[in-house]
């Protein structure tokens, strides 16, 4: 009974609750039980507050019982990546630096979730300060992939993806800077969406790389992700980059019947060497499914995409080196070495040495270097020029096609520990996802089947503001593939 409940989509659960056939309390209880059963092994949630969640669920049930009209996701439990400020949970960003820190304010995304009646059950694990593609750099231990707990769930938002993949919650919120929602989505067989830059407010999202970060939904179906994006998206005067336009009809798009008239471009550069054969096979099958649904398929070349990764690994460390400067032990968070005799400078040095993990230090140093006098033009400056070229390639491509597609990431989930000693190999996981962050357009990963028993993701990219196209393709693909599979694919051993 519980398994049947836990595997339902958020949309279905919302309908059941609206029809009075299910209470949020029952549902939340089931999710909490699932979390309790699996979290010790998978390390998905860093903080859970069962009492508060149940109280919240009961409050939503009471409002509904009193006849109040509630939104489609009211009463649905949700996990939030631990880099969103929440006043009722610590916000650690997976780092020792912020262990136990409770913010005095809620992120706009969090406030919107509460206003829409979703039940925030806890905060999910992540790579430290969102730096990584495997959730292995978290100070609080790695999260394990529900499909194979010896493997990574992707990163930096491995927790949110795994929470959804393992049926702990139907929905989660993540943040995507270079692929941190989409790549975990791909390797856990879930849906992960990076909205158009500015489509979802970043106010209250602990900044990693300001010009690249974007909050987004994690779900098991395209429709669920669309429902969630409609809740968290929209204009926010607190975020200067926020797009001042109404959120389009994403849910409607996710229910599109077919892809007639849609022009789909395969990114020529995102195939070949470095891509696992199984990944490429699933990709081609997915493309065929789109063709069968009425889409026109062409190949498009985006030569500047080959430089997206190196440019990204200059811009992102540069911005984060500045964004992370505030963590100095003076106003909040960790303070190390204050023995009364040391100076503020010494305490800052010791605090940051103690509070940041290895990858964080690596990137802060690279970023400091890329911005420093004498190197700015060669590194940061050049990278920003390459970024222009990438934007240009997208513009040219979207003049010919409506969406671009590629594998989300070149491989299936790798083993925990496999890439930790070779940063460059780790960075390659973001190869296909990075260009969309650089250009700011909308991009998503949808489940495309398994390779050797492990999930493969299909990436769809749309022009800025055309997020609806992602959901149109995602919805159609999902229905086509699930028909082929006889239903959604799920990891074994996670349901009782």
């Amino acid at each position, binding site marked *: 009974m519980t398994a049947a409940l836990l595997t339902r989509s958020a949309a279905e659960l919302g309908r059941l609750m609206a029809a009075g056939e299910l209470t949020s309390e029952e549902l939340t209880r089931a999710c909490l039980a699932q979390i309790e059963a699996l979290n010790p092994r998978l390390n998905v949630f860093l903080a859970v507050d069962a009492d508060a969640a149940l109280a919240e669920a009961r409050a939503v049930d009471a409002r509904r019982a009193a006849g109040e009209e509630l939104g489609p996701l009211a009463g649905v439990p949700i996990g939030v990546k631990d880099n969103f400020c929440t006043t009722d949970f610590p916000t650690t960003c997976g780092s020792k630096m912020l262990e136990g820190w409770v913010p005095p304010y809620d992120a706009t995304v969090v406030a919107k979730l509460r206003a829409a009646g979703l039940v925030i059950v806890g905060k999910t694990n992540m790579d430290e300060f969102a730096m990584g593609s495997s959730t292995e750099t978290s100070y609080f231990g790695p999260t394990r992939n529900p499909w194979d707990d010896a493997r990574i769930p992707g990163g930096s938002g491995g927790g949110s993806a795994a929470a959804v993949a393992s049926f702990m919650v139907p929905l989660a919120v993540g943040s995507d800077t270079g692929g941190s929602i989409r790549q975990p989505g791909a390797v856990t067989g879930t849906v992960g969406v990076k909205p158009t830059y500015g489509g979802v407010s970043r106010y209250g999202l602990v900044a990693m790389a300001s010009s690249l970060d974007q909050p987004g939904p994690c779900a098991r179906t395209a429709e669920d992700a669309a429902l969630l994006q409609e809740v968290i998206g929209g204009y926010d005067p607190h975020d*200067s980059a926020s797009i001042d336009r109404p959120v389009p009809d994403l849910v409607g798009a996710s229910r599109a019947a077919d892809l007639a008239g849609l022009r789909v471009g395969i990114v020529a550069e995102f195939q070949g060497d470095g891509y696992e054969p199984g990944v490429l096979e699933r990709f081609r099958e997915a493309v065929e499914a789109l063709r069968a649904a009425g889409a026109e398929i062409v190949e498009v070349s985006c030569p500047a995409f080959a430089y997206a990764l*190196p440019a990204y690994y200059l811009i992102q460390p540069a911005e984060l080196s500045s964004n992370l400067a505030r963590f100095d032990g003076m106003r909040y968070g960790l303070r190390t070495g204050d023995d009364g005799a040391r100076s*503020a400078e010494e305490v800052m040095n010791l605090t940051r040495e103690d509070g940041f993990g290895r990858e964080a230090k690596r990137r802060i140093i690279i970023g400091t*270097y890329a911005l420093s006098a004498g190197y700015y033009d060669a590194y940061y400056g*050049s990278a920003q*020029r*390459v970024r222009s070229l990438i*934007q240009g390639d997208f513009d040219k491509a979207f003049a010919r096609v409506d969406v671009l597609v590629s594998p989300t990431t070149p491989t299936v989930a790798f083993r925990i520990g496999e890439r930790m000693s070779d940063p460059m190999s780790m960075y390659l996981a973001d190869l296909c996802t990075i260009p969309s962050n650089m250009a700011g357009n909308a991009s998503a990963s949808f489940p495309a089947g398994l390779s050797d028993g492990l999930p493969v993701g299909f990436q769809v990219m749309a022009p800025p503001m055309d997020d609806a196209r992602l959901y149109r393709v995602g919805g159609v693909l999902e229905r086509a593939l699930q028909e082929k599979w006889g239903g959604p694919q799920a990891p074994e051993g996670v349901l009782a």
Partner: protein
Amino acid sequence: MGLTADDVARLGALARIQLSEQECAELAPELDVILESVASVSEVAGPDVPMATHAMPMANVFRADVVTASLTQEEALSGAPAQDDGRFRVPQILSED
């Protein structure tokens, strides 16, 4: 590239991170590899290519000059490692502004 342990130590100082000697020695070759891989960017785009600005070109995003609610003193200090009489207490500051 040739980033030395000393270079790393110097960058660490600039970034206010007390890196150990061992860390500097280990990081230098790691960073070198990364920097070599990213060095290609400087060849790709000449100075005639403009630096990218924002993904969505917007300008003049302002707020009205209106006072809104602040945090309470307690909220402001809620995370403070040390405080005294409503102020953040920090160790002695040696450098000058």
